[in-house]
C-alpha cells in the first residue's frame, strides 16, 4: 500500500514543526517534550502509558473487579484443580485457564479502550453552529443561556431528535449521549460501568459483552466443578470434611446480566434506550427501532462482528498551536485553542457545577434514606439493598417502568457469596445543561465520591420530577 509522499516516513514518529513557534513548547528543539493531545484532553479521564490507555476517573471499583476475578480463579486453580485434574481429567484446569485468560483479556480491553468518545468541537465549528442556530431562531441569544436546542431528523421513517450538547458544543449524533462522569459525549452510549472503570459505547461494547459472557461461563464452570469436587470428596471423607477443604462458592449473577445484554444485542438497543423505553411500543403504535436490521442474527453480527471503528481522539498526537483564527470566538466560547492546555475552563466548570446541582436535586431523597455503599469488602450486600430501594434505573417520564428491570433486580435466591458480582448502575447520562424535563438519575449510586452539595432549592421543578420518578419506580 502506497501512501505517496509520506511512504518512506511511515515508521517514524514526528512532532509538529511550526514555521512560527508561538509557544516554546512547540519549537522543534523541544520536540521530545512537546505535549501530546491526551495531556490536554478536556474530559474527565485518566490516561496511562503515554495515552495508550484511557479510563474513567474513578477506577477503584475496576481494581476490585480485577482482584475478585483473580483471587476467585486463583483459589479454584490452587485448591480444586489438582484434585479434579487427577481424579477426572486435566482438561478441566486447561479449559478453566483459557476461560480465565479470555475474561481478563476482554476486561482489560473494555476498560482500557476509548469507548467512542466524540471530540469536542473546535472553536470555529462551534461558532459556525451558533451562527446557524441564531439564524434559525431569528434572534441573538445574548449573554443568557439560550433554550435547549434540538434538531429533528428522520431515520428510516422514524423521527429522532438530536440534542445539542452545551459541553461539547456539538449536536449529538443519534444514539450518542453525554456521560456526566467522564464529561464526554460517547457514541452509541450504553452505560457507564464502574466495574470496568469506563463507559461502554460503540467501540468497546463487543469487548464488554464478551467479558460478561465469558465471565458467566467462568463462574458457572468454577461453580460446577467446585460442587463436583465437594461431591467427590464427600464420597471419600464425608461432606463436612469436603467443605472444609474447598473454599468459596460462586454466584450466577453474571448470567442474568449476560442474558440482558444478549437481548439488547439481538434487538439492537443500548441499555440507555432500553431504560428510557425509546423504542418501546408503549410509546405509540408507530414507534419502532430504526436502527434494528430486522432480524436477530444480523443484529448480533452487527454488534459483535461488525467493523471496529477507530478512535476519533488522536490521543498520542502532538498538540499544534494554530494561529488566532479569523473568526473570533462568540458567545463567550473560551478558546480551547489547539493548545487545549486550559482543560478546565470557566464554561466547562459551569456545566459541571450545574450538572452537579441537578444531580443533587434528584439525589436528595435517596441520600436521606440510605447511605450509598459503593463497594468494599462484603459490599455486595449493601449494594443490593440500595438497588432494591430506589433503583438505579430511572425511566424518564414513563408511566410504567420498563420490563427489563426484572432482569436487573437483585435475585434474592442467590447463594451466599464472597465475590461481588458486577452490578451495573445504569446511569442515564446527564444532559448538560439542565433543561426542564431532563431527569438525571441513578448518579447517586455511582457518585459516592461527589456527594456533598445540597442545593435542591435551585432545582425545584426538576426535584419534583425526579421525586415523582423515584416514587413510581419504588412502587415496582
Amino acid at each position: 500500500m502506497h501512501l505517496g509522499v509520506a511512504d518512506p516516513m511511515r515508521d517514524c514518529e514526528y512532532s509538529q514543526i511550526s514555521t512560527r513557534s508561538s509557544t516554546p513548547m512547540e519549537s522543534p528543539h523541544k520536540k521530545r517534550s512537546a505535549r501530546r493531545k491526551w495531556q490536554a484532553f478536556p474530559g474527565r479521564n485518566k490516561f496511562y502509558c503515554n495515552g495508550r490507555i484511557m479510563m474513567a476517573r474513578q477506577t477503584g471499583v475496576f481494581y476490585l473487579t480485577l482482584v475478585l476475578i483473580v483471587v476467585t480463579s486463583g483459589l479454584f486453580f490452587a485448591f480444586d484443580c489438582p484434585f479434579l485434574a487427577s481424579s477426572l481429567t486435566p482438561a478441566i484446569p486447561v479449559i478453566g485457564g483459557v476461560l480465565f485468560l479470555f475474561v481478563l483479556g476482554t476486561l482489560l480491553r473494555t476498560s482500557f479502550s476509548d469507548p467512542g468518545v466524540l471530540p469536542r468541537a473546535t472553536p470555529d465549528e462551534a461558532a459556525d453552529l451558533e451562527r446557524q442556530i441564531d439564524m434559525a431562531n431569528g434572534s441573538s441569544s445574548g449573554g443568557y443561556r439560550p433554550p435547549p436546542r434540538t434538531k429533528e431528523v428522520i431515520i428510516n421513517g422514524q423521527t429522532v431528535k438530536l440534542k445539542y450538547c452545551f459541553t461539547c458544543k456539538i449536536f449529538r449524533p443519534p444514539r450518542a449521549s453525554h456521560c456526566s462522569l467522564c464529561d464526554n459525549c460517547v457514541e452509541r452510549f450504553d452505560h457507564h460501568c464502574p466495574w470496568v472503570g469506563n463507559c461502554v459505547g460503540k467501540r468497546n461494547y463487543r469487548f464488554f459483552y464478551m467479558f460478561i459472557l465469558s465471565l458467566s461461563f467462568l463462574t458457572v464452570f468454577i461453580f460446577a466443578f467446585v460442587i463436583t469436587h465437594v461431591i467427590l470428596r464427600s464420597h471419600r471423607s464425608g461432606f463436612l470434611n469436603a467443605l472444609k477443604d474447598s473454599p468459596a462458592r460462586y454466584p450466577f449473577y453474571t448470567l442474568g446480566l449476560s442474558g440482558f445484554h444478549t437481548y439488547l444485542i439481538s434487538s439492537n438497543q443500548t441499555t440507555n434506550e432500553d431504560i428510557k423505553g425509546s423504542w418501546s411500543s408503549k410509546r405509540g403504535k408507530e414507534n419502532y427501532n430504526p436502527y434494528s436490521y430486522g432480524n436477530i442474527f444480523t443484529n448480533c453480527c452487527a454488534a459483535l462482528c461488525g467493523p471496529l471503528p477507530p478512535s476519533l481522539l488522536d490521543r498520542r498526537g502532538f498538540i499544534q498551536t494554530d494561529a488566532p483564527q479569523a473568526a473570533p470566538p462568540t458567545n463567550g466560547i473560551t478558546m480551547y485553542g489547539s493548545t487545549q492546555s486550559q482543560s478546565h475552563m470557566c464554561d466547562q466548570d459551569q456545566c459541571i457545577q450545574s450538572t452537579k446541582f441537578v444531580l443533587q436535586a434528584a439525589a436528595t431523597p435517596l441520600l436521606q434514606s440510605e447511605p450509598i455503599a459503593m463497594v468494599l469488602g462484603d459490599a455486595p450486600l449493601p449494594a443490593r439493598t440500595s438497588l432494591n430501594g430506589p433503583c438505579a434505573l430511572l425511566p424518564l417520564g414513563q408511566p410504567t417502568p420498563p420490563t427489563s428491570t426484572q432482569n436487573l433486580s437483585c435475585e434474592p435466591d442467590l447463594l451466599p457469596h464472597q465475590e461481588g458480582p458486577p452490578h451495573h448502575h445504569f446511569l442515564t447520562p446527564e444532559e448538560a445543561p439542565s433543561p426542564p424535563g431532563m431527569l438525571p438519575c441513578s448518579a447517586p449510586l455511582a457518585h459516592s465520591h461527589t456527594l456533598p452539595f445540597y442545593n435542591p432549592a435551585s432545582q425545584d421543578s426538576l426535584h419534583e420530577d425526579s421525586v415523582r420518578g423515584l416514587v413510581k419506580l419504588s412502587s415496582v
Partner: protein
Amino acid sequence: MGLPMRGALLKTEAGRDFNMAETHSLQDMRQQAAIAAKVYVQRDYSTGTICQFQTKFPSELENRIDRQQFEETIRVLNTLYAEAEKLGGKSCLEGCLACVTAYTVFLCMETHYEKVLKKIARYIQEQNDKVYTPRGLLLTDPIERGLRVVEITVFEDRSS
C-alpha cells in the same frame, strides 16, 4: 496570519499512520493567504448512524467551485465511508477471527476500517491537489474533526 505547517506524519494508536503532509504550493498559499471563511458540511443522519455527509451545496462556495464537482467529492467520500462501515462477509470474518484470538490479532493487523480511512486520506489529498487548492480552498479530512464535519477552508481570493 498563517497556519503552522502540518508536515508531519502522526503515529496514532494501534499503529495507524495518517499522512498529514501538504504540498509546497499549499504551504506557500497558507503563508501568503489569509483565511476568509470556514465552511462546514454537516453529517447526514437520514440513513442511520453510518457516516454520511450532506451533499447540499454551501452558499459560501458559490463563486469558487462547481456545484457538481463539490457534490461529486462528497458523494465519493460517502461511498468510501459506507464501504468502511459495511457489514459484509469480510468484516464479519475479521470480527470472528479477532474474537477467537481475544482481539490480539489487531496488534499486528490493521482493521478494515483503518484501511479504508487511509484510502479516504489519499482521496482527500488528491482532491485538494487537483481541484480545491487551485481554487483557493482546502478540504480537511473529517477524521481530524471527529467525523463530525467536512471542513472547507476558504482562502482570500488574491488571484489576478
